[in-house]
């Protein structure tokens, strides 16, 4: 059975302003096919909290449909996500609800997909400790791509990957976490979440406590970290 430890916490800026967390995450675990999503609503947009939540649900909606075909293209999945997100928003204007979108999705037919629009991190650590980081289209300096901001399919970074193997860890994070991580320690972070926090009764609560005590000076962002693994 696949396991997940994930949480979102408000960053100090939103705590100070009395505003809610604008990150969201979602995970579905099943023996056939699993899904992990994290989204970071853009702080400058008034409805981004709704945008990020709608994006996680849109990915789930799209993934459920996409799984029906053993030969579905990633492009199809992303197009459904884009349309589903706008529909999920209802009356909310897309540009007021901009959000990044990162996900890992298994199709139940022996395939899996990683896709990313905007800042954040998708990484994997194999059982023998090899770490691979999904390439992002973001070029640094925080000029992020997002749903609700004009973009094209080419702005998504997506690829087919192998489904998670036993003992392999998947890490998804919003940029409040990923921007401050040492790249050489991503695998160790995943291992700490699975082996130390995952062994505790309430790992998500412990992770939330750690994220609230984020040790980097001047940090302000909301933070979301999701680790999925097959024990």
């Amino acid at each position, binding site marked *: 059975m696949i396991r997940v430890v994930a949480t979102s916490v408000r960053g100090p800026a939103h705590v100070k302003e009395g505003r809610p967390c604008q990150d*969201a995450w979602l995970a579905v675990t*099943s023996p056939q096919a699993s899904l992990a999503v994290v989204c970071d609503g853009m702080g400058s947009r008034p409805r981004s909290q709704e945008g990020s939540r709608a994006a996680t649900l849109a990915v789930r909606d799209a993934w459920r449909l996409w799984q029906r075909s053993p030969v579905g293209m990633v492009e199809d999945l992303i197009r459904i996500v884009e349309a589903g997100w706008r529909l999920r928003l209802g009356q909310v204007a897309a540009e007021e609800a901009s959000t990044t979108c990162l996900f890992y999705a298994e199709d139940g037919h022996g395939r899996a997909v990683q896709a990313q629009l905007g800042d954040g991190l998708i990484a994997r650590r194999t059982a023998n400790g090899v770490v691979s980081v999904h390439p992002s289209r973001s070029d640094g300096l925080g*000029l992020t791509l997002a749903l609700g901001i004009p973009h094209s399919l080419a702005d998504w970074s997506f690829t087919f990957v192998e489904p998670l193997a036993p003992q392999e860890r998947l890490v998804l994070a919003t940029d409040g976490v990923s921007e401050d991580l040492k790249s050489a320690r991503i695998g160790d972070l995943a291992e700490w979440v699975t082996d130390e926090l995952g062994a*505790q009764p309430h790992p998500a609560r412990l992770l939330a406590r*750690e994220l609230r005590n984020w040790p980097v000076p001047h940090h302000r962002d909301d933070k979301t970290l999701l680790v999925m693994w097959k024990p």
Partner: protein
Amino acid sequence: MTVKTTTQQGNHMQSKGIDKVPPSATSPKKEVPMSKLKEFTTQAARPLPVIVLADVSGSMGVDGKIQSLNLAMREMLDAFKDESDLRAEIHVSVIKFGGKADVHLPLGRASDLSWSDLGANGGTPMGAAFELARLLIEDRNTVPGRAYRPTLVLISDGQPTDEWRPHLEALLKSERGGKAFRMALAIGADADHAVLQEFLADPEARVYRADEARQIRKFFQLVTMSVSARSRSANPNAAAPVVDPNSGWDL
């Protein structure tokens, strides 16, 4: 056969829920060491670079211009040092061009920098300064990907004396240089406004003018306010509103 599928999700609602959990309910059976994340994270705040391209050609040596520039730079650094409650850590570099272009102040934390006065002599190799700025801004060891968008500040009182256009084009077309915020100050009547406007690369952006040396200080106060406002804002990558210098304290 029964197959178990589990869906979990969270956003602000879940976070609020966690906030309300009494401490006793969250006590783990085994103590987990705190601040473990320190091992996995950098300990440096995200930098917000400010790169000043300062004309120190011979003509800056008259009418108190270079003295005013030195005073303005000193005041700006002091102001950045006094800032607190920032989202970003302000880093400053100064590239001077007078006779030749070189880095007067390597990019570093404003709080750690001390200012040594500039002198004025030689021609105006502005193109060489653009090239140095491009190399600096594109160097990912110096300006890491986690940095906020830099601010480029150009001040000049004369005509460029080298082939500036190819270097400016290279700067503006570079992956990161083109995305930097840019501000420009023309000092005196001999300044080449057209070059400064091309540096801004935005027909709606204005080149500030200083007809007297003391107005250089006012321009740098404007730069300081703009950078400080960004560093305090929810999103330091967004442009901060710049005070209209025509409203009460014209340069």
